[in-house]
Structure formats: structure tokens, C-alpha cells
């Protein structure tokens, strides 16, 4: 019997995520092409960022939901429970940050804080900053703890690999970038320019990003020792998500320094959605592996009146 290719249910979650990301990137690249073809007569920077915000928050919600489903399959005391708990918390932080930033931390019509006679701009600003902290340094710190836990378990099972020169080099570049950012902030401060709170929040996350980049490189080595199985794919996605976060952070700093012509808004719209989708692939691949295992054991006899109850709980 031919294998049924289905896009139903959680089994095809990775496929849906990749398809969504593909469509999103294609549309954005098409707009970029039109912009170029039209001789850059209209401003790409001026286009609305609502679709990007909606996609980002939606993907964060999907990620959180998938993480919760995976978390339920690891009971208390299971070695990977703490790792999945931390990954779920990181997803929750991102989802909460998205909702707070886009719905309560923005001056738009549907924000209830804008409805009163005197809009509470101070509160909106505070909410925005809290959301940035939750989705930035806090989320990264949680992810770093999750990575540490999973690396410890991989080491226990003999999948540990020592960091190579490449790993140290990548981490070194990230550290250099962090130092440059801090140096730039110090210089600006000494020159009497005020550094915005957003910048401080971004700077606070950079040291954690250094640790994360080293952890991601170690995870990459360890996962390479495993192979390309169903479980491994989820951990590869985690490693890619972290490396993309690092790359995005570097690119966002580098682009305005070296090129004024590249549409930064377009990049800002593409990068977070891509990173969000890659992070959503982590629980999605884990679910595919788990459901495959359950399906194998739970396929009921075709003529059995008893059948077998749904094993995936």
C-alpha cells in the first residue's frame, strides 16, 4: 500500500511550519523584487508591519502550544522534563512578549489603554519595555539553561563532543560583537548622547547570546554524533534557531553601519518570523517522533471491535 502523505494533525506540523515560512519569505522577496524593479520609487520602509507582527505572535503561540503538548509527555522526574519545561517557558516568554508589544505596547486604535480621554502613554511605554525584557534577556537566559540541561544529558549518553577551533572562533566573533556594542554604548554615553531603554535591554541580552552561541555549537557537534534521526531533527532546529538569533542580532547592527540602501524594515520583518518558525520546529519534530512511536504500537486491528484507544495523551 502506498504511504499516505497527509497534512492532517500534529504529524505534519513541521511541514505546515516550513510551508508557512516559505510562503512568507516568498511574498516578502517578491515585494523586494517589485521595489527594485520599480526603481525603488516607493518606500519599503513605509509599508505596514502589522502582518509581520501578527505572523510573529501567531508563530510564537503555535510554538507555545506544541511545547505544552510535548511537555505533557514527560512526567515529573523524567530527565528531559526540566529541559522541556525551560523550552516551554522560553516559548511562553516570547508569546507573552509578542502579545504585550503588539497589542498593549503600541499606540494603535484597538489598544484599550488608548481609549480613555487621556491615553496612558507612560503605561504603554512600560508595558513595551517589560515585553522587550521578557522576550529578550529573560528568554535567552531560559534558553541557555535549557541548552545546558540537554548538553548534560547528551554527555551522559556518550554523545558529547569537545569544542573545536571553529566553535571557539564562532563564539569569539559573538564576543567581539558584544564588546563592540558595549564599546559603542560607552562611547555614546561619554559623548553625552542618551542611550534608549530599548538599547539597554538589547545590550543586556548580548552576554547571554555569547554563552548561547557556544552552547549551540556544542549541541551541533553532539547532534552530529547522533545522526539524522527523528529526535535529532528537533535539536538541530534548536541549534539553528539560536545561531539564527545570533546572526540576526549581528546583521541588525552591521547593516545600518555599512549600507544605507538595504531595506532594514524588510529584514526586520523577515528575520524574527524565520527565527520564530525555526524555534517552533523544535517541539514539532519531537511530536513527530513521539507520535510515530505511539502509532506503531497503537494501530488497531482493522476488524477488531475493541480497537485501541488514542495513545497520544
Amino acid at each position, binding site marked *: 500500500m502506498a504511504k499516505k502523505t497527509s497534512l492532517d494533525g500534529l504529524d505534519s506540523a513541521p511541514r505546515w511550519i516550513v510551508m508557512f515560512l516559505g510562503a512568507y519569505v516568498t511574498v516578502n522577496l517578491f515585494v523586494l523584487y517589485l521595489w527594485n524593479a520599480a526603481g525603488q520609487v516607493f518606500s519599503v520602509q513605509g509599508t505596514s508591519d502589522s502582518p509581520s507582527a501578527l505572523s510573529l505572535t501567531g508563530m510564537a503561540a503555535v510554538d507555545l502550544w506544541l511545547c505544552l503538548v510535548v511537555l505533557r*509527555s*514527560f*512526567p515529573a522526574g*523524567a*530527565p*528531559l522534563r526540566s529541559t522541556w519545561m525551560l523550552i516551554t517557558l522560553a516559548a511562553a516568554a516570547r508569546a507573552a512578549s509578542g502579545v504585550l508589544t503588539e497589542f498593549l505596547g503600541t499606540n494603535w486604535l484597538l489598544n484599550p489603554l488608548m481609549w480613555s480621554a487621556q491615553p496612558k502613554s507612560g503605561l504603554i511605554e512600560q508595558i513595551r519595555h517589560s515585553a522587550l525584557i521578557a522576550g529578550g534577556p529573560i528568554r535567552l537566559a531560559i534558553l541557555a539553561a535549557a541548552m545546558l540541561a540537554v548538553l548534560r*544529558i547528551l554527555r551522559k*549518553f*556518550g*554523545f558529547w563532543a569537545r569544542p573545536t577551533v571553529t566553535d571557539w572562533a564562532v563564539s569569539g566573533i559573538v564576543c567581539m560583537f558584544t564588546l563592540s556594542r558595549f564599546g559603542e554604548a560607552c562611547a555614546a554615553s561619554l559623548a553625552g548622547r542618551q542611550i534608549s531603554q530599548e538599547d539597554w535591554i538589547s545590550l543586556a541580552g548580548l552576554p547571554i547570546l555569547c554563552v548561547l552561541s557556544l552552547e549551540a555549537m556544542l549541541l551541533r557537534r553532539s547532534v*552530529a*554524533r*547522533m*545522526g*539524522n*534521526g*527523528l*529526535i*535529532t531533527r528537533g535539536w538541530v532546529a534548536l541549534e539553528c534557531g539560536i545561531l539564527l538569533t545570533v546572526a540576526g542580532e549581528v546583521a541588525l547592527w552591521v547593516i545600518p553601519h555599512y549600507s544605507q540602501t538595504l531595506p532594514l524594515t524588510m529584514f526586520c520583518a523577515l528575520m524574527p518570523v524565520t527565527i520564530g518558525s525555526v524555534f517552533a520546529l523544535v517541539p514539532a519534530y519531537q511530536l513527530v*517522533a*513521539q507520535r*510515530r*512511536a*505511539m502509532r*506503531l*504500537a*497503537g494501530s488497531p486491528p482493522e476488524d477488531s471491535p475493541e480497537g485501541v484507544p488514542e*495513545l497520544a*495523551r
Partner: protein
Amino acid sequence: MHTRSAALIAFCDAETGAYRSRRIARHLSKCETCRDQLRRIESEKDELSSAGARAPAIGGPQGLAGVLSAIAAWQDGQSCAAASELKSRLQWQIETYFGSPAVRVVERPGIRAEELLGRTSEILDVFLGPNAAEAVRDDVLSGLAFAGPAGETC
């Protein structure tokens, strides 16, 4: 208000927690209707149990002997076809869930089938979760035909 019949059934089966049991017991001491219902649930349970138990039980010694002889045959290496089949199934599962290089890490040279089963179970338990790992174990062990008195002789 009367106790729900599901709660009474659980109480009858000693499946309610200590706090809930105390609450139900307190209610039962005051409510004749619920006491009647509990008695009826108990009688139904007794009836169903006794109907089930009317079926003669297994003739112990020889049935057990069959299991023990299968175990002895396995330990003596007489069921080597089943053992090697088990090993190759385990390798395949490791390849599926982790990848081919992982097989080399998990499987040591000359490892016994049950040791490989243990190592594979452990790693699957950790990375896949206990329920899914149990399902994989079931899949690996099903249809190996080692339950006979003595498997294929090497």
C-alpha cells in the same frame, strides 16, 4: 446533595483520595439513599467478579514451566535467531530516532540482546518520553516468537 455514582464507584474501588474518601464516608453516614446505592454497586461488583472467577484458573506448574524453559533457552543462547532479530530491530529503532552514528555509540561489540534492549530503552525513555518509549519497546518485542518452550537452536 447526593454523591455522584462515579464517585461512589471510585469509593467502592478504594480509588478516591484520603480527603475525598473522608468526605464521602461522612456523607454516607448521614444519607440512607447513597448507602443503598453503594451497597448496590458493591453487589454488582461482587457479581461481576464472581462471574469472571467462575472460569477455571490456569494449571500453574506446567504453564510456568513453559515460561521458565523459554527463559532458560534464551539464557543458554538457544534462541539465537530471536536474539539477533531483536538486536537488528533495536538497531533499526536507534537509526530511525537518532541516526546511524548513534548505533555505534549505543551498541558495544559483543553486547547481549537484553543489554542492548536496556540501553536502547534508557535512551528512548529519556529523549522520547516514557509512553512513547514503551510503545517502541512493544513494537520491538512483538512477534519475535521467543515465547515457545525453546526457540530456534543455534
